[in-house]
């Protein structure tokens, strides 16, 4: 058996954590882009678009992320796409993030007084320009705290991609645990790494919340 020192375990876990970070960033960016599209549908004037977006959000918020990942992982090959764990992980987390972000931002848009829209149209701006210049910047600013809060949730959710076989922090830790039989140390360290990733963001969220509360 190969001997693992504490340092070996920590080093391998830290190397694996890079994938957790990368996956979180990619899924958050992708989720933000798709999320804006869902948001636009959710606040559209056409009722069928609004309703579809509502169902989309309800579907992702009402089913386990693990099932969403399984469905993509096993479903896409049926449609003829070759898919790897990385693709399924990115796609699954992106779609899920888009639903949550759209719902958060919708709250921001709806909290703005109607006068903001009216003022926009009185300036002769068309719908897209009103959104781009007036509505969305304010909605994003108001919802910055829950958006960062969701990023924390997303980082933690990447742990589930280990189950469909993506080599991130948790999957690596399972392998190391099987080789070292040091579950207490290994999972303790894994928890610590996640904590170090998430806690600063949580603190930042608290600060943002306090700032909005004081306003």
């Amino acid at each position, binding site marked *: 058996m190969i001997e693992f020192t504490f340092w070996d375990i920590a080093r391998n876990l830290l190397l694996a954590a890079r994938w957790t970070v990368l996956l979180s960033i990619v899924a958050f960016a992708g989720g933000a882009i798709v999320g804006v599209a869902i948001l636009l549908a959710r606040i559209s004037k056409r009722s069928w678009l609004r309703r579809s977006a509502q169902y989309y959000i309800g579907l992702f918020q009402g089913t386990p992320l693990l099932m969403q990942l399984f469905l993509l992982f096993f479903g896409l090959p049926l449609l003829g796409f070759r898919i790897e764990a990385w693709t399924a992980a990115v796609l699954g987390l992106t779609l899920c993030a888009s639903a949550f972000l759209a719902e958060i931002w919708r709250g921001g848009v709806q909290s703005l007084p109607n006068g903001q829209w009216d003022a926009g149209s009185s300036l002769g701006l068309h719908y897209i320009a009103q959104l781009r210049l007036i509505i969305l910047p304010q909605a994003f600013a108001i919802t910055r705290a829950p958006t960062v809060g969701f990023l924390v949730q997303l980082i933690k959710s990447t742990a589930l991609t280990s189950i469909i076989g993506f080599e991130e922090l948790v999957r690596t830790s399972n392998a190391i645990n099987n080789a070292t039989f040091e579950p207490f140390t*290994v999972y303790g360290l894994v928890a610590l790494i996640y904590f170090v990733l998430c806690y600063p963001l949580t603190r930042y969220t608290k600060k943002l919340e306090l700032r909005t509360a004081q306003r």
Partner: protein
Amino acid sequence: MGYALDFGWLNDALGMIASGAAMTVFLIVVTSVAGTLLSIFGAIGRRSRHAILRKLVAGYVELIRNTPFLVQLFFIFFGLPRLGIRLDPVAAAILAMTLNMAAYSTEIVGAGLDAVHKGQTEAAKALGLRPRIIFIKIVLPQALKVIFPALTSQIVIMMLESAVVSQIAVRELTYEADMLQARTFRAFETYFIVTLVYLGLSIALRRLLYAAGRRSIAGGMA
């Protein structure tokens, strides 16, 4: 490529799906009750006069909220035996879910306690009620009424999160799905059906809690 969806296996699988769903419901019922009770103590501790207790509860809440549930579960199931605490899968799942749920709802319950007007406690004190009675009969019911929607959301989120405990071989809905797809080789169809079951469960759970909450907690007070 012609792939035809096949749901022919479903008839024979209904029993497995039902027993898996029953396990999921059992887990979430136990967790909701235990987690909410624990979080009431957590919220009291968070507002205690003793700084050590306040810090301990705050540390616990932050630790749970900033690490993935899956890691907490693995730590409890695989890590704790090192300390001589050996739990069977169901007990480990309930412990992990309860600890997780309690951390999130400590914040929720705390917000509810803060929302109850101080005058309520003062009025009760003026009537000569003991502090414990004041908390149980006056403050807590009003706090629960305020936080009920948030608590409902947290319970539904916990139910969805419980899919993860299949990883330590608790025979709940996801575990049964894993078994089924290994037997039928119909992975997509299996997970599709089970996803629908989860969706139905989360909608039903939300409706049920709202109905129950409106009747018992908010009843006569709104």
